[in-house]
């Protein structure tokens, strides 16, 4: 058996030894993230059969829980770590050619640190450790947003930094209050004792934690940083921020609500927040003329859908939510990666400047179309089964309220369709297409784009293996007794 600690240790170690590789040869630096993420991907997939039988617990430092820092590698953790490694790997292959200016060595170091932080958050079983990994993720993403050092990038990075820091400070206060109440930082130990204190005194830490994590998860009133940060970062980073960073925030919110607090009473509030986030995101996306801002707002909308489905609090809903999370990670990563070279070729982020791309970059435009159709939820792409599962779960609740809410969600999807089809129309049917030369994106960029395209279609046609995995993941999230037992023995 491979020790799951390596999932965190290898990328962390490689990110700090990366300058040493740079001493040997400047050319091999950029391959280091690929090596680390291939390793993570392989290890994650090797662990899947074992983890689905029973979660693996790793105790660091040789103490027993609740006194040690522990890693809980359950179905949810391994699912997320595989997703992080997959999307991270594809974006790092893309970056081989895409990142040409600036301090490239620092880019690759920060990139690996970002993914280390994300992997750490999803695997850890200790709430303070979760905070630390979250900060690793956040600080490296602040720096990467401002990587190009241009006007927009720096301004967005400052905004992101201020909001993100306040969020993580609130989260740290919440962690401190929990420690004061329970005298432990182990999530399973807190969860097993949570019923012993009055609900008023756990309400404040719950609110602080959800608010703090909600900043990174971009839940509605806390997401003002997202459109700026995602649109002014380099495209490979936008893909990671949209595909991974906000998903990790969602994971942390879900873990706090379901596992630690078992707070089923605030789920309706979560449903409402999700719906508002969805509608506001989609309507704002509809008004955009800048393609990257459009994609960023669409991420907000999709996050809303994921939160909405999580808030239903039933097994089907959580499966749908996690499936939507995977589908959004793949589709949005694909969209940002394709858009990166489209902007590079057309020299502008305006949607109207993308005219004729269908002829200039046929494969990239096809990939964009597939990604867009998948996000809208057309079959046979991955977005269809995920949205279908969410709608089925909402209808299975058999409450009038949820029928009305799901109708509003579908309205959001219609808006989403409207703006994505508009972009696809510009790509293929607008403007004069004569005298256009074919100038496809370079091969290192096409490899991840094609892989993502194939994955989106394959999982869309044959979702069975993914849903089996998601079923065990959702039961881990919803069954907190089992989680506590698996950690504390």
């Amino acid at each position, binding site marked *: 058996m491979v020790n799951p600690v390596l999932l965190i240790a290898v990328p962390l170690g490689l990110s700090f030894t990366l300058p040493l590789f740079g001493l040997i040869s400047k050319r091999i630096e950029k391959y280091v993230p690929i090596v680390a993420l291939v390793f993570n991907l392989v290890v994650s997939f090797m662990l899947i059969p074992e983890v689905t039988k029973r979660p693996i617990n790793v105790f660091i430092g040789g103490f027993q829980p609740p006194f040690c820092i522990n890693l809980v590698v359950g179905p949810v953790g391994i699912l997320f770590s595989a997703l992080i490694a997959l999307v991270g790997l594809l974006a790092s292959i893309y970056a081989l050619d895409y990142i040409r200016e600036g301090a490239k060595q620092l880019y690759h170091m920060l990139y690996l640190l970002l993914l280390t932080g994300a992997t750490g958050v999803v695997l850890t079983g200790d709430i303070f450790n979760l905070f630390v990994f979250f900060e690793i993720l956040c*600080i490296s993403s602040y720096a990467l947003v401002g990587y190009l050092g241009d006007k927009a990038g720096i301004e967005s990075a400052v905004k992101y930094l201020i909001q993100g820091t306040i969020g993580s*400070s609130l989260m740290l206060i919440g962690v401190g209050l929990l420690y004061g109440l329970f005298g432990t930082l182990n999530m399973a130990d807190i969860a097993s004792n949570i019923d012993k204190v009055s609900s008023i005194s756990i309400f404040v830490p719950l609110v602080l934690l959800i608010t703090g994590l909600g900043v990174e998860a971009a839940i509605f009133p806390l997401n003002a940083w997202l459109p700026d940060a995602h649109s002014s970062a380099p495209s490979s980073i936008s893909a990671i921020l949209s595909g991974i960073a906000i998903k990790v925030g969602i994971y942390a919110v879900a873990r706090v609500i379901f596992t630690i607090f078992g707070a089923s009473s605030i789920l309706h509030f979560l449903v409402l927040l999700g719906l508002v986030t969805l509608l506001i995101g989609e309507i704002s996306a509809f008004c955009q003329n800048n393609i990257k801002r459009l994609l960023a707002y669409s991420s907000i909308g999709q996050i809303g859908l994921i939160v909405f489905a999580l808030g239903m609090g039933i097994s089907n809903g959580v499966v749908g939510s996690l499936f939507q999370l995977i589908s959004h990670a793949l589709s949005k990563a694909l969209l940002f990666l394709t858009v990166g070279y489209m902007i590079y070729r057309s020299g502008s982020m305006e949607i109207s400047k993308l005219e004729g791309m269908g002829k200039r970059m046929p494969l990239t435009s096809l990939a964009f179309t597939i990604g867009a159709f998948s996000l809208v939820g057309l079959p046979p792409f991955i977005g269809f089964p995920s949205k279908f599962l969410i709608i089925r779960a909402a209808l299975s609740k058999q409450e009038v309220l949820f029928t009305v809410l799901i109708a509003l969600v579908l309205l959001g999807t219609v808006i989403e369709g409207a703006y994505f089809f508009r972009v696809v129309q510009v790509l293929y049917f607008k403007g004069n297409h004569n005298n256009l030369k074919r100038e496809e994106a370079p091969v290192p960029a096409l490899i991840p784009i094609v892989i993502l395209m194939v994955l989106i279609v394959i999982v869309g046609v044959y979702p069975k293996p993914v849903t089996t995995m998601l079923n065990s993941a959702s039961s881990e999230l919803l069954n907190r007794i089992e989680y506590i037992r698996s950690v504390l023995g």
Partner: protein
Amino acid sequence: MSVLNNYVYYGGAFGLIFIGIYIVLVKRNLIKVIIGLSILDTGINLFLISLGYISKGTAPIFSKIDMEIARMVDPVPQALVLTAIVIGVAVLALALTLAIRLYHHYGTLNLRKIKDQRW
């Protein structure tokens, strides 16, 4: 008075936290906002330390046989604060770096005047 003695640290800590949040929300100058974030950080660190603090306590090391366990200070919050300080320094350094770059681009640190990006 003993009640006051027990809670004075919490009062101070949350006072600093609210002062920090107030500065971040109200001030227009980016440097002042960063100072606010720093005060917020300090407040949280003080809060974490006071969770495990015992007046005239000793370090939790069994160096003598007759040491009382009840008088020992809880070491976990101190470890947390050590980590939180390091994180705070990293954020502060990054924020100041970005402030310098922002000033190069805009020639001002007034956040009300820097609004190229908006919804």
